[in-house]
C-alpha cells in the first residue's frame, strides 16, 4: 500500500467517525425531546464543537492531499466527495443542535401530544445518514440510490406533521408556541434527510463519476 493510499484510508476513517458522531447527535437530540431530557439536549449542544472540529480537520486534510498528491480519477473524486460530504454532515450537526435547543424550550412547557411521527422521521433520516456512509464504504450505488428514494418518505411525514399541528393551532391558539416549535423540529429532520440525500448523491459520484444532483428521478435512474 502506498503512502497516499494509507492517507486516503485515514481520511475515509475520519469521515466515518464524523458520521457516527453526527448520527449520535441526531439520535440524542430527538431523544432529549421525546424523553423530555433537557440535560441530554444540553450535552448535544455542547458536543457540536466536536463535529465542527472534525469538519475543519477533514477539509484541511483534503486540501493538503490535493496540493501534495495531485489526485486523479477515483482519488480526485473521493477527495472532492469527502469535502462535500463533511459540509453536509456539519450542517446535520447544526440541525441536531437546533433540535436540542427547541427540545429545551418545549421541555419547559406541558406536553402537547405524544411524539409519534417525529421519532419515525428520525429513524428514517438516521438510517439514511448511516446507509449513505455505508454506501461510501462499500462502493454500493444501489444502497445510495435507495437512500435518495427514502427522502420522499421523510418529506411526506413532514407534511403530515405540519398538517396535524396546523389543526391543533386552529383549534386552540394557546398551542401555537409549542406547535410552531414542533413544526420547526420536523422541518429540521426533513433538512437532515435532504443533507443525507446530498451525501448519497456525492457517494454515487464517487463511485460512478456521474453527477446526478438536480436531475429528475427518472433521469437519476
Amino acid at each position: 500500500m502506498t503512502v497516499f493510499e494509507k492517507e486516503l484510508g485515514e481520511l475515509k476513517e475520519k469521515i466515518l467517525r464524523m458520521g457516527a458522531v453526527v448520527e449520535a447527535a441526531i439520535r440524542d437530540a430527538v431523544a432529549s425531546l421525546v424523553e423530555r431530557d433537557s440535560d441530554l439536549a444540553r450535552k448535544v449542544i455542547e458536543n457540536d464543537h466536536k463535529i465542527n472540529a472534525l469538519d475543519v480537520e477533514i477539509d484541511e486534510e483534503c486540501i493538503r492531499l490535493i496540493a501534495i498528491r495531485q489526485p486523479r480519477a477515483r482519488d480526485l473524486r473521493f477527495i472532492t466527495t469527502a469535502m462535500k460530504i463533511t459540509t453536509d454532515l456539519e450542517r446535520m450537526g447544526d440541525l441536531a443542535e437546533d433540535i436540542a435547543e427547541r427540545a429545551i424550550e418545549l421541555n419547559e412547557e406541558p406536553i402537547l401530544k405524544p411524539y409519534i411521527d417525529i421519532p419515525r422521521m428520525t429513524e428514517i433520516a438516521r438510517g439514511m445518514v448511516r446507509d449513505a456512509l455505508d454506501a461510501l464504504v462499500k462502493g454500493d450505488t444501489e444502497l445510495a440510490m435507495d437512500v435518495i428514494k427514502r427522502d420522499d418518505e421523510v418529506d411526506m411525514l413532514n407534511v403530515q406533521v405540519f398538517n396535524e399541528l396546523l389543526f391543533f393551532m386552529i383549534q386552540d391558539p394557546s398551542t401555537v408556541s409549542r406547535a410552531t416549535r414542533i413544526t420547526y423540529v420536523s422541518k429540521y429532520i426533513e433538512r437532515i434527510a435532504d443533507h443525507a440525500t446530498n451525501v448519497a448523491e456525492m457517494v454515487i459520484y464517487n463511485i460512478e463519476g456521474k453527477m446526478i444532483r438536480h436531475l429528475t428521478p427518472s433521469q437519476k435512474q
Partner: protein
Amino acid sequence: MSEMSIAISEKLKSEVKNLNFYYGAVQALKNISLPIERRKVTALIGPSGCGKTTFLRCFNRMHDLYPGNRYEGEIILYPDNINIISTEIDPIEIRMQISMVFQKPNPFPKSIYENVAYGLRVRGINNKQILNERVEKSLRGAALWEEVKDRLHDLAFELSGGQQQRLCIARALATDPRILLFDEPTSALDPTATSKIEELIIELKNEVTIIIVTHNMQQAARVSDSTAFMYLGEIIEFDRTEKIFTAPTKKLTEEYITGRFG
C-alpha cells in the same frame, strides 16, 4: 464524398483505422483506431513501452527510415482523404505536411536563423525576403522572437534548453504543417521551461492540429482536449481529457491515472 464523410472531415483532421504496426516480426501496435480532431490537442499516455511513441511516429512515417518495419491499416488525412501509411505515398510528401518536435531539443549546429529556415530550404525556397518573413513568423509563433531577434545568426547551441526546444518548435512551424507531433517535448526541460512549452502548445492549437506523447500525466491533463491511454500496443481508453482524469471507465486506465499501476 458523401454528406456524412463531409461532416466528419470538417471536425476531424485525421482518422486512424485498424492500424497495426510491426517491427520485423514483433507487433508493436495492435488494431488501433482513433479520431484526431482538427485544431485540438490529442494526448497519448501510457507506461513506458506501451507503443505511444511508436504510434506517434507512424503519422510522419519515421519508421520508414529504418528497415524491416511494416504498417497495416489506414491513417486517413483529411480533407484530402489520403492514407498516410500507404506504400504508394512517398514518406517525404507526408513529412512535408506533418512536422515533429522531439524528446530532446535537437537543433542543428547552425545559426538560429538557419535552423528555422532549413525546412523551407529543403522545399527549394531560397528567396531571402520570403525566408526572413517566414523565419520571423515561426519564431513569433514559438514565442521565441523577442528573445532571439538580435542574435539570429548566433549558434543555436548557445540558447538554453527551453529556448532550444522552442526553436525546434519554430523549425517545425516554418513549413506550415497540418499536424504537429510532439514526442515528450518537455522530458529534458526544467519546470519553468516546461510550463512555457505547455502554454505554447495550448496557443498553437488555434492554428494547427496537435498530437502529443507525454510521460507526464499532469501535462496531458493540462494541455490536451482528448486523451488516449495506451497499454501493450493497444488503445485501452480514449475520451475527453477531463473524463479520463476524473472518471475513466476502464479499470486499467484508472490504475494508471491514479498511479497504482503494476
